[in-house]
């Protein structure tokens, strides 16, 4: 009798502790683990061809015009309501995180929708985020060449709205170093602080 009551007691105690454990947020904070940096570094750096497109002022603009700076590139289109603005907002955060080093970095939005993205439209778009951001656009042939070096996929998609089309596109960001070599790729929605840290290392020549 006594023994069975005892068993009951123990069972109850176990049940309570199991329930509490299941309930509570698993408190296994094993101290501050260093968060890994978000980008994939290309080692050795990839030699990429220079390219010339049209910038947001309507002038020809070459990647080599930015020689001496670290360049952060994103390929998108202005009729993109969520991924592209999110990324440009992150670029803005990266720039803020860089502080004084931001002078050594150029932020470039390359349109994969040259048919709709005129220089005026690009200017309004990139400057809605930062007056220093650069917008580039070009025809399909020019874009194909540029895209190949960075492994960019993009494709127009028509659907039942005849007045509109969508553009599937790679949402990663790419970093080119001061010598025009492709060095880092960041997946979509990488942590801005982590991106800034990796870019800062490039600025410092590491």
């Amino acid at each position: 009798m006594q023994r069975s009551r005892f068993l009951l007691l123990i069972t109850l105690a176990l049940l309570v502790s199991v329930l509490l454990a299941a309930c509570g947020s698993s408190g296994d904070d094993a101290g501050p683990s260093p968060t890994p940096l978000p980008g994939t570094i290309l080692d050795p750096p990839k030699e990429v061809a220079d390219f010339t497109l049209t910038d947001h002022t309507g002038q020809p603009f070459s990647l080599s015009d930015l020689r001496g700076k670290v360049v952060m590139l994103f390929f998108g289109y202005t009729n993109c309501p969520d991924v592209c603005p999110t990324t440009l907002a992150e670029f803005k955060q990266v720039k803020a995180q860089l502080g004084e080093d931001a002078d050594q970095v150029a932020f470039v939005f390359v349109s994969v929708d040259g048919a709709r993205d005129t220089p005026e439209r690009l200017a309004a778009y990139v400057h809605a985020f930062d007056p220093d951001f650069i917008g580039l656009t070009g025809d399909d042939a020019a874009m194909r060449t540029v895209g190949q070096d960075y492994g960019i996929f993009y494709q127009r998609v028509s659907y039942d709205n005849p007045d509109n089309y969508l553009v599937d596109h790679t949402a990663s960001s790419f970093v080119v170093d001061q010598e025009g070599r492709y060095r880092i790729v960041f997946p979509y929605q990488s942590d801005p602080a982590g991106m800034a840290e990796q870019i800062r290392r490039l600025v410092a020549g590491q």
Partner: protein
Amino acid sequence: MLTRSRWITLVLMALLLIASLAACGDDEANNTQTGPALTVNEPWVRATIPMASEESGETEGESTESGETGGVTGAFMTIANTGNEADTLIRASVDASIAGTVEIHETTIDENDVMKMRPVEGIEIPADGNAVLKPGSYHIMLLNVQRDLNPGDTVQITLEFASGQTLTVDAEVRAME
């Protein structure tokens, strides 16, 4: 015979058990009402690109792609369903002075980090659950936007659900960033 103190311990344990069970379980309001019960939280619209000079001024002859005259933007919100039946958002609309077309889209990012946006038939709001419309996921797409939408503006959006319910929400325009 169990001692008095053992009995007290037993009772305390039982109480603890009940308390922890209560804390654990969702407090399912045993509402007698059936069907979906929807509310919309934090609706917002991303500001449009400020287009000082409207492109329409430069049209030469035919306007082949009328879709490019107006801009686009997205509307985002959380739709909560406290009812015991699912519902589906099937249509959204705004006044024609705001946007020419409104569609429901979903953005996905595939394993190659390629962004794909597609129109969808509807967005299900599960029973006792939420549908979250946010960047990089579901959103309401405003196309052929007729005027600049600036931070601080309000856009009235009408949401229609499969159940027949209609909700009208005032979405705040937030900066692009």
